[in-house]
């Protein structure tokens, strides 16, 4: 159900929100050498790292706290004077600390695995911080819950965060399923090699739809579904259900969607499934959307990915420009009939669909429009 976006703060390998969008518009990628774990052991040589000069221990807590602090300041809200809840979406929590513990480091207190401490310390007066661990679509699931909290009158404002920092166990899984190390994420490319992880954090503030303060964008609705199909492989019907759910909840027709900020992970299975779901739901419903995706430039920021897409969407709405799919050279055959953004395009979208799909078939699709 509708809500207003009054602040959106990012940290990716490309910088903050404006820096990330500017880099995307110029087609720049933030890829670099892998800085976490041993590349030859992991069969992963590259990553999209956020380098803040500090140690990587508890980096996710530090980054999400920074984004939360900035988002609350931008929104001009005092959590002590409003009924406010914070939701933090993450795929990997601080599991890097568990890996350090398992390989000879000190035991970390269990509460440091989630983000309550970090976000409460960054935002004085905030009492309720809830960590939602929903894989690569965690941020999108947190958005949906935030919309429900506002619509049902259970909160007056919601701080929605998303964050992930690279872990060795996830890198091992990524390296395990490719023959040779992936050298770049190429969403929707015929020659895509697979996914790479990106460090990322984001924080947005949502207020009810009738709030009078200036807004960056209007969140029309977030649709949710679970494939209940396969542990790791995506399902077209599950993804399509989330897309339809968002349209139904927002009371919109598929033909109104004119831009998709896709999930686009550059994996063998996601990209064809996402293309097919876009065709079945949007194209078959009369839409001819432009499709862009950011992971070729930012890597897969997992828990933050949905909010990174949302930030890019609101900047496309505001700027009337859509960045290209960085890394895309030759569209995959399964993308036939879809319009991929291959150069920066002057384009004024009206209704943007942001996709986020996660491990275990957890799907979140958010529709966003100008305020």
């Amino acid at each position, binding site marked *: *159900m509708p809500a207003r976006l009054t602040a959106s703060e990012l940290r990716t390998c490309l910088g903050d929100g404006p820096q990330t969008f500017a880099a995307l518009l110029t087609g720049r990628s933030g890829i670099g050498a892998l800085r976490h774990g*041993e590349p*030859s*052991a*992991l*069969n*992963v040589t590259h990553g999209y790292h956020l380098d803040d000069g500090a140690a990587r221990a508890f980096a996710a807590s530090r980054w999400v706290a920074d984004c939360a602090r900035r988002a609350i300041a931008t929104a001009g809200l005092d959590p002590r004077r409003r009924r406010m809840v914070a939701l933090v979406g*993450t*795929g*990997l*929590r601080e*599991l890097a600390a*568990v890996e350090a*513990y*398992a390989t000879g480091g000190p*035991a970390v*207190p*269990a*509460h440091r695995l*989630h983000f*309550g401490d970090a976000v409460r310390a960054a935002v004085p007066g905030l*009492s*309720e911080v809830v*960590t*939602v*661990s*929903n*894989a690569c679509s965690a941020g999108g*699931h947190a958005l949906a819950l935030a919309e*429900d909290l506002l*619509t*049902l*009158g259970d909160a007056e404002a919601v701080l929605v965060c998303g964050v992930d920092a690279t*872990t*060795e*166990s*996830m*890198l*091992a*899984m990524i390296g*395990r*399923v490719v023959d040779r190390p992936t050298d770049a994420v190429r969403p929707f490319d015929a020659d895509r090699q697979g996914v790479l992880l990106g460090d990322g954090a984001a924080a947005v503030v949502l207020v009810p739809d009738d709030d009078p303060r200036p807004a960056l964008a209007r969140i029309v609705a977030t649709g*949710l*579904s*679970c*494939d*209940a*199909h*396969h*542990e*790791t492989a995506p399902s077209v019907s*599950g993804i399509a259900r989330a897309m*339809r*759910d968002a349209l*139904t*909840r927002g009371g919109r027709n598929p033909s109104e969607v004119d831009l998709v900020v896709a999930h686009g992970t550059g994996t063998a299975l996601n990209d064809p499934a996402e293309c097919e779901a876009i065709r079945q739901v949007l194209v078959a419903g009369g839409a001819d959307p432009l499709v862009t995706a950011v992971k070729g430039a930012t890597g897969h920021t997992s828990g933050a990915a949905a909010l990174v897409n949302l930030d890019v969407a609101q900047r496309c709405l505001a700027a009337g420009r859509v960045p290209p799919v960085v890394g895309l050279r030759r569209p995959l055959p399964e993308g036939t009939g879809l319009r991929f953004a291959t150069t920066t395009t002057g384009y004024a979208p009206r209704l943007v669909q942001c996709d986020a799909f996660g*491990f*275990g*078939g*957890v799907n979140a699709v958010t529709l966003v429009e100008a305020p």
Partner: protein
Amino acid sequence: MTAMAARRPVPDVTATVRVSGWSLHLPEAGPLAAELADWWQVPVDRLAGALAGAVPADRAHEVLGRKGLLYKEPATRLALCAAHRALGLPPGRTRPAGVDPATAVVVAGNLGNVATVAALARTVRAEGGRAVSPLAAPNASSNVVSSTVALWFGFGAANLMFCSGATAGLDAVRAATLLLRAGRAARVLVVGAEPADETATGLHQAGRASSMLRAGAACLVLTCDAPTAAAGPVLALGGGYPAARRLGPGGFDPATRWGDCYGAAGVVNLALAAALLAAGVAGPIAVACGDDTDGRREALLDAGGAAEAPAPDGRREALLDGGRGADR
């Protein structure tokens, strides 16, 4: 189901949320049943049924059947057992006929995959990534418990995993009530599950040394249906309700008496409250979870409907649920 998907859902701010089915899956909880009965002054045989039949994770096949359990971590196995029992299913694997798009799954737990993550890290350091089994891949992601429950039973509405520490159980319950009231699901399974392996215990001990981590799970089946005699106890969230007695920190706390199910505690305590109401204890019962670090959450459970019949264990209520799970 298709009709539901096609209609724009209308949020129901005042909807009554009920516990229409529940289970407790706490291995070796015999002493807890005795203490609980003593404290609440009910005959222990009325509670024993609700706490019986909880096989440990390595015997999960006795509840779930043998197929599909390879590479499933203990927390996932316990969660599946709890869900299976709350749905009132007979022992053995019952494969879903299709995906039910109206039932959601919300799981609470923090330590379910830490042993796998630790083992993966050790393997990578010692032998390299090639030595890692791709079959362990789903376990590297913290939402493996919730997505596995959905996949196992074919539940296709929203799927959420709460890893918010000591408050996770009631955070999950709250999210489930949002899903029901916002029209995202007609039924929600809320599962709490924690393991007690060496890695999990080490992390728990470093943060909550005053209690011992204990492996266990519980499940609540929440619905928003109109009140009927068999619809189950009524759930309300938030503190400050007048309640005769309390389960959790500040009252009868299973964490200090038997063992701490940590992220699952809120769900375990609510299921215990349901068991007590079913055993004839007068409601309402306040339920709490949390600690000084993560904060505290509260809920209230009271007998719903006029003809709430005491049941010897959670299964009978689940069978009265009438949901599709009970028919399978």
